């Protein structure tokens, strides 16, 4: 009844092509942004900010990067964590060697460095696709962390390979509290999400989807397949690189190359599969599902045990959590293979008619 576009007429193509053509969506987004930018910094505790919200945002950004490549351009990649590592270590080195540079500039440079590395590892995509390409990107996943450990310069010759990030500082302003860091991460993620949305609704995004859906037809139309794929790798890696830099600087504070392992790559891949392949919002939903659900399950299982007066042996909680988590993933994939974003879309279509049958 409330979600309805009846009576909202568009008078120009400009209005029709707006990101949020429907008034209710505009209100919804404004409300979400108000909650994210105003309510959460005021209400959330430091624990919530550092342990839940900042990682959620960082993973959303990485998932968004992977989604541009895999969901929109159709190139499967298992190297996300490696690209995040490049971003983290690039930002560290830029800050280390050019100490007066604002953090934001280092993050952008880290993203650009990652983009170049990403394009290099994207070159095999010109000849191979699908699972074979995934194996080729796996090479990045094993090679990059190995290189970061092997060449001491990258970690500033730290004996354990662990780097401790410098404080985030932009023109004298230090982001020293969780709320400030949250604010910074949120601003970057919101901005990059907007850019991603713009990219996918303009010519480049259509070229990506064309290559994904039917590459012969795309070529015949005059889309340069090679260029389109490499730009996809570049843009996607830029996002992953910035996410990696934020992962190190705003979330963990100290990272080692081995932390960016295949496990992390798979986590991010699961995020986009569960959230929705080829959907900007899906990246956020998937990241929320994967980062928040284990915490939620933890609470439910512990509380449940207390209510039922059960004494759980140590470790049972975490095993139960994994079991339920795995079960839920399978359940979701069977019920809606296109992810949470698709469920949301169906809900919107239903809401348009509700409560009337037609």
């Amino acid at each position, binding site marked *: 009844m409330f979600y309805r576009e009846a009576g909202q007429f568009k008078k120009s193509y400009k209005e029709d092509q707006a990101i949020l053509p429907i008034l209710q969506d505009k209100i919804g987004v404004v409300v979400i942004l108000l909650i994210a930018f105003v309510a959460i910094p005021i209400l959330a505790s430091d624990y919530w900010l550092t342990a839940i919200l900042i990682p959620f945002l960082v993973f959303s950004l990485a998932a968004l990067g992977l989604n541009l490549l895999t969901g929109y351009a159709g190139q499967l990649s298992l190297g996300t964590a490696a690209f995040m590592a490049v971003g983290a270590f690039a930002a560290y080195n830029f800050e280390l060697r050019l100490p007066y540079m604002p953090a934001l500039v280092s993050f952008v440079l880290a993203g650009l460095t990652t983009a170049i590395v990403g394009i290099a590892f994207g070159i095999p995509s010109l000849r191979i696709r699908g699972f074979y390409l995934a194996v080729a990107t796996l090479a990045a996943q094993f090679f990059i962390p190995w290189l970061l450990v092997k060449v001491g310069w990258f970690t500033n010759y730290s004996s354990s390979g662990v780097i401790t990030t410098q404080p985030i500082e932009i023109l004298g302003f230090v982001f020293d509290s969780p709320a400030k860091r949250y604010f910074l991460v949120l601003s970057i993620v919101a901005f990059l999400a907007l850019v991603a949305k713009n990219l996918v609704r*303009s010519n480049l995004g259509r070229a990506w989807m064309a290559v994904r859906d039917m590459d*012969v037809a795309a070529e015949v*139309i005059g889309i340069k397949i090679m260029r389109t794929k490499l730009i996809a790798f570049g843009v996607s890696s830029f996002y992953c690189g910035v996410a990696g830099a934020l992962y190190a600087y705003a979330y963990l504070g100290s990272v080692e190359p081995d932390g960016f392992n295949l496990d992390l790559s798979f986590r991010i891949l699961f995020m986009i599969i569960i959230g929705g392949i080829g959907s900007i919002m899906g990246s956020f939903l998937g990241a929320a599902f994967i980062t928040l659900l284990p915490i939620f399950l933890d609470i439910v299982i512990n509380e449940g045990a207390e209510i039922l007066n059960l004494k759980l042996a140590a470790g049972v909680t975490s095993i139960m959590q994994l079991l339920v988590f795995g079960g839920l993933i399978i359940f979701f994939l069977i019920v809606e293979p296109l992810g949470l974003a698709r469920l949301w879309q169906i809900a919107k279509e239903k809401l348009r008619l509700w409560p009337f049958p037609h």
Partner: protein
Amino acid sequence: MTKKSILQVNEVSLSFGGVKALKNVSFNSEEKSILAIIGPNGAGKSSLLNVINGVYKPQQGEIIFKNTVWKNVIPFQAAQSGISRTFQNIALFKGMSVLENILTGRSLKMRAGLLSQGFYFGACSREEIEHREVVEQIIDFLQIQHIRKTPVGRLPYGLQKRVELARALAAEPELLLLDEPMAGMNVEEKEDMSRFILDVNEEYGTSVVLIEHDMGVVMDISDKIVVLDYGQKIGEGTPNEIKNNQRVIDAYLGVSD
């Protein structure tokens, strides 16, 4: 007076390993004409179309398009110089809406850079609206206004074919290659499609090369017909000449000897 020819195919031969798909095929197509390629299944019709816009590389022969000689054309060049096409098995971009599919057809004409697209500002937003206007004209022309926001995967077959034609037209081609535009359609849909092809030819002056199995349609709309059988050209001429060509009749009906 003979008209200028827009496309000349000269002695083209194409083989896949031992299979000779095309053997010394030559023909030419006049500007603003409709040329039909017919022939039994496996005669090499689609291969010929694929050679013309560079999907396949012929071992021998050349293509002359608008007075430029091409030996080894790549699809991008073909698209750039004004050839667009549709496919036998619909090759639409399934995950996109009708509007997006047709807009993709205009990608060669879009110039906005990466940053402009990322911020949807300046050149990009201007272009998106300009091209939208052209696309809307094509949508009106092909009468698919009601489905412009529908994902193409949800459309019935006949409409998908029409959307594919729209995408090809969006590039404002000088030569339109249509691979069985009417396959699998009912009579009414075939009539609609024939009308669209004739209208395109008349209004925009686009030359058309099409492959079609429905002889009624072919005889009605084409100016010239080329007949292929086992990769060889066995006849060429106006519909009337083809109707009375003994070799063509033999190829289609078989010879009793």
